[in-house]
């Protein structure tokens, strides 16, 4: 069982740049959970994916979820993005219920309008990019800033160009996604998510569908975003080095429950649980724990 005071104690000392942002973020860490899971259960029919899950993520924190496939990591991100709804318990975003509230001891679903309001604070990047193939790159990025946030076309385009510059795709604004490589598509997807100015960014195995040599270009961009912004990030990844570099905290999952909750240094050098040790040995290779 994780305790709320653990996470704030770890300082991401190795973070280059954005020191002020990180420091500012730290002032609120430990006191203000932006994501909170309370006794969350998720089942698909008889298959219980998450059971009585309790954990929270503080404002500005970067938390990575690791664990074997089928342990419920992706389901957690999908619950926060409201792509799935919990079958029991509740999720709070910045103190407000996300999809269900408890009213007189009863669990009541919020109206779609209420859910939508919270949802705009959250962004997600998918394993399969999910860009809209019928739109150009810039249309993909400006669609929601214009139609959801009500930005003017010029404003949204200027911001999109800025973001494209950040992800190194200045010349691709008018290209269609199908003409881009996987890595480029994922960079556009990152820009598209950031264009909505999310407070929470969910990264769901964003490099798993990419060729190995392209993985670093995408991770480099995410590292840069982590360094220069104070967006809260919830990350599912198999890239342990990235998890180690970017996270404030790592949660080890197995069978829909948290097995271990620690800062990356402890998690990767001195994990306490046998299950974690076994998992890390399998992913990092024999004898790798503590040497990387």
């Amino acid at each position, binding site marked *: 069982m994780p305790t709320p005071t653990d996470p704030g104690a770890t300082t991401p000392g190795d973070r280059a740049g954005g020191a002020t942002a990180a420091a500012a973020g730290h002032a609120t860490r430990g006191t203000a959970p932006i994501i909170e899971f309370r006794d969350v259960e998720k089942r698909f029919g008889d298959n219980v994916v998450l059971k009585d899950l309790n954990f929270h993520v503080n404002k500005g924190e970067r938390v990575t979820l690791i664990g074997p496939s089928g342990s419920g990591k992706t389901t957690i991100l999908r619950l926060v993005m409201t*792509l799935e709804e919990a079958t029991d318990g509740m999720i709070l975003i910045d103190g407000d219920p996300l999809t269900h509230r408890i009213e007189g001891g009863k669990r009541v679903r919020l109206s779609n309008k209420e859910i*939508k309001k919270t949802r705009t604070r959250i*962004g997600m990047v*998918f394993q399969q990019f999910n860009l*809209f193939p*019928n739109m150009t790159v810039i249309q993909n990025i400006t669609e*929601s800033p214009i*139609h959801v946030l009500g930005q003017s076309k010029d404003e949204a385009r200027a911001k999109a160009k800025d973001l494209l510059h950040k992800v190194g795709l200045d010349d691709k604004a008018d290209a269609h996604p199908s003409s881009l490589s996987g890595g480029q598509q994922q960079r556009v997807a990152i820009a598209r998510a950031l264009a909505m100015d999310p407070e929470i960014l969910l990264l769901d195995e964003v490099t798993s569908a990419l060729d190995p040599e392209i993985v670093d270009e995408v991770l480099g961009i995410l590292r840069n975003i982590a360094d220069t912004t104070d967006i809260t990030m919830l990350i599912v990844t198999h890239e342990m080095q990235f998890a180690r570099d970017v996270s404030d905290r790592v949660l080890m999952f197995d069978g829909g429950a948290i097995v271990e909750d620690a800062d990356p240094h402890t998690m990767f050098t001195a994990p306490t649980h046998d299950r974690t040790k076994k998992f890390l040995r399998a992913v990092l290779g024999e004898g790798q724990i503590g040497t990387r």
Partner: protein
Amino acid sequence: MENQRQPWNWDLAFEALPDILLAFLQVTLLVTVVATLIAAVLGLVWAMIIRLAPQPISGIVKWVVSFIRMTPIVVQLLFAYYTFLMFDAIPIGIVVFGIHYSTYMSEVYRAGIDAVPKGQWEATTALSMSTRRTWTAVVIPQALRATVPALGNYAISMFKDTPFLLVIGVVEMVNAAQIFGGNNFRYVEAITLAGIIFLLASYPTSVLVRRLEKRLAYAY
């Protein structure tokens, strides 16, 4: 009696041509084009109601659409003609053809909508897109791309069904040819011409549809 023994009479063919062409332009083409437009729009409406409307509305629409699809167009033409006596036969023909084919097209749209990958829907949720934008900016454009060829084929098939308009007394091209034949005691020329005009109109349309299909495939 020489007239009867000749296999083909060119003079008669040229004499028949204006009547047949006129019927083609005034009825066959008009009905096909207008009814195709009606079918293309209504088909999408049915598909969206079935997909989006709450029960029992979606269930009722689904049932009505299947019912129309599973009864012959001749029966529908006669039913509409004798039910709505205040309307002329041609508008009735257009509406009946439009509605009849809209039920087929709604199936095509449904398949096109189902073919939009789940990840696209999830992206619209992750971007907080409204239901309206989700459909108009993402789902329909992608679904249409898959449906254009099928819609074109239904238009051609409707075109070839237009002679059924005879049952409600509309003189379209084939019926005009038959009348001409009756007046001159020779049917071969007029009916052959009608067939050739069908071919001349259908073939370019099908080529056009195929080309459109290819273009859409390369569009993105």
